[in-house]
């Protein structure tokens, strides 16, 4: 049976591959800034938005987008005021998941629907939902391309970038909003708790092999997209949970990249 023949599989392939290829583009900048877990935190906040949407009968994507963007703005403001300590950020993130589940349970949202959002349910997507995911991904790509030199300068050395005239506050803001967009875009396909892995793991794998930032970005994006396709195929044939399979394939890529680097290093030495 060719899995590409089924329309639900086509939708899953498009949604997962697109968001998994775009997630590392944004992820590279947060990894470089030493904030690898920001995506995970944003996932928690998105869950509050999902719960709220269930409660008021709105679209979960809209609820999640509104909450994550608001939390992102709040975090950036707190950062500017010197209040974005570890603890304050943790409070926002854990508050998000607590509030989300409170709302969702009051709204009597089905457990399977919640699990689907937390861990992904790409096989249940509709074409309009896939369209929204692709739209979010394209918007993120456009912003990354437009701001690329400034984002690289800021991620590599924030103080030097400021002295070079880069508006680093605005770059942090743009980056935070992009993290929110990726989290929301990956929510129903790869899952709120797993999408942040796709921002980080392909980047970690590519960092082992590339020798330039641009090279690392392109490679990480390819690894992300390929992990989604391979992960979905594995999930299809073995009946695994798709989100988990995708992330595990990405982790396998990281391990392979690390091993490869070890081998080539030894060969050179």
């Amino acid at each position, binding site marked *: 049976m060719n899995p590409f023949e089924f329309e639900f599989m086509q939708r899953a392939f498009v949604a997962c591959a697109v968001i998994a290829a775009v997630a590392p583009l944004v992820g*590279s900048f947060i*990894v*470089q800034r*030493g904030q690898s877990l920001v995506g995970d935190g944003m996932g928690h906040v998105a869950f509050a938005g999902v719960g709220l949407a269930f409660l008021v009968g709105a679209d979960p994507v809209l609820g999640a987008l509104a909450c994550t963007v608001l939390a992102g703005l709040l975090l950036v403001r707190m950062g500017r005021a010197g209040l974005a300590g570890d603890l304050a950020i943790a409070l926002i993130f854990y508050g998000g998941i607590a509030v989300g589940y409170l709302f969702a349970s009051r709204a009597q949202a089905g457990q399977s629907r919640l699990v689907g959002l937390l861990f992904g349910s790409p096989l249940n997507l509709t074409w309009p939902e896939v369209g929204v995911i692709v739209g979010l991904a394209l918007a993120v790509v456009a912003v990354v*391309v*437009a701001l690329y*030199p*400034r984002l*690289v*300068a*800021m*991620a*590599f*050395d924030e*103080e*030097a*970038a*400021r*002295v*070079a*005239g*880069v*508006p680093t506050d605005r770059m942090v803001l743009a980056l935070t909003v992009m993290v929110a967009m990726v989290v929301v875009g990956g929510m129903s396909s790869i899952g709120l708790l797993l999408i942040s892995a796709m921002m980080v793991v392909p*980047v970690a794998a590519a*960092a082992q092999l*590339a*020798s*330039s*930032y*641009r*090279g*690392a970005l392109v490679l990480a994006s390819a690894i992300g997209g390929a992990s989604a396709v391979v992960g979905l195929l594995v999930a299809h044939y073995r009946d695994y949970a798709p989100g988990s399979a995708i992330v595990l394939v990405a982790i396998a890529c990281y391990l392979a990249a690390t091993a490869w680097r070890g081998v080539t290093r030894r060969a050179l030495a």
Partner: protein
Amino acid sequence: MASAATGAPLAAPPAAPLELDGVSFAYGRSKVLSDVSLRVAQGEFVAVVGSNGSGKTTLMKLGLGLLPAGSGHVRLFGEELSSFRAWWQVGYVPQRATASSTIPVSVEEVVVSGLAARTRLIRRRSPGEAARIDHVVELLGLEGLRRSRLSELSGGQQQRALIARALVTGPKLLVLDEPTTGVDAEARSVLRKSLQHLVEVEGMAVVYVSHDPEGFSGLAQRVVEVVGGRTPVDSGRSSLREVATG
């Protein structure tokens, strides 16, 4: 106000690249600098010395607007920091042990990142910028390393790349914070030669922070010492003292 106290003429020559005037700063409650003034004139090479923790790095960050001064004025090229926009005129080499980077970054990417604020979306790199990149790469002896991964270079080569990044916009003021710490002899001599070129040929003003006089001896026209700062008895205040004229 402070000019009368320091005896500077009222009609100062225009547009000193860097001017700190009665500046104070504290990290939370710990005072680091109080009422410090420093003026660096066009084409002047000023060395800033002082013991570890005396506040040299803090002073530079205040001058570059990376930290907000608690009191006093900071001016770049005669412009108050809050309204200063011509950042291409300023080059900064921050103090660091190594250039750490999780994501690989090539020497060329590091150098070009100095131009980030001037890069337009549609426009390609201008011939002038390309020439400037080639010039600084050559000046700092990085020709063969453009495509190398920064983290695989020696400390001295990394530092040269960071200096090239600071120079790529063609600044008129260059601030170097401990540029020779953990750097090999070759990088020291390359740095010395390039600084000489920058000051004598390009007329750049240089502020060189170091506790090691070897790096600036014979180059610095003025040596300024940041005094105090360490002992708690001193309430953590530092002030500036002119040490010598080289």
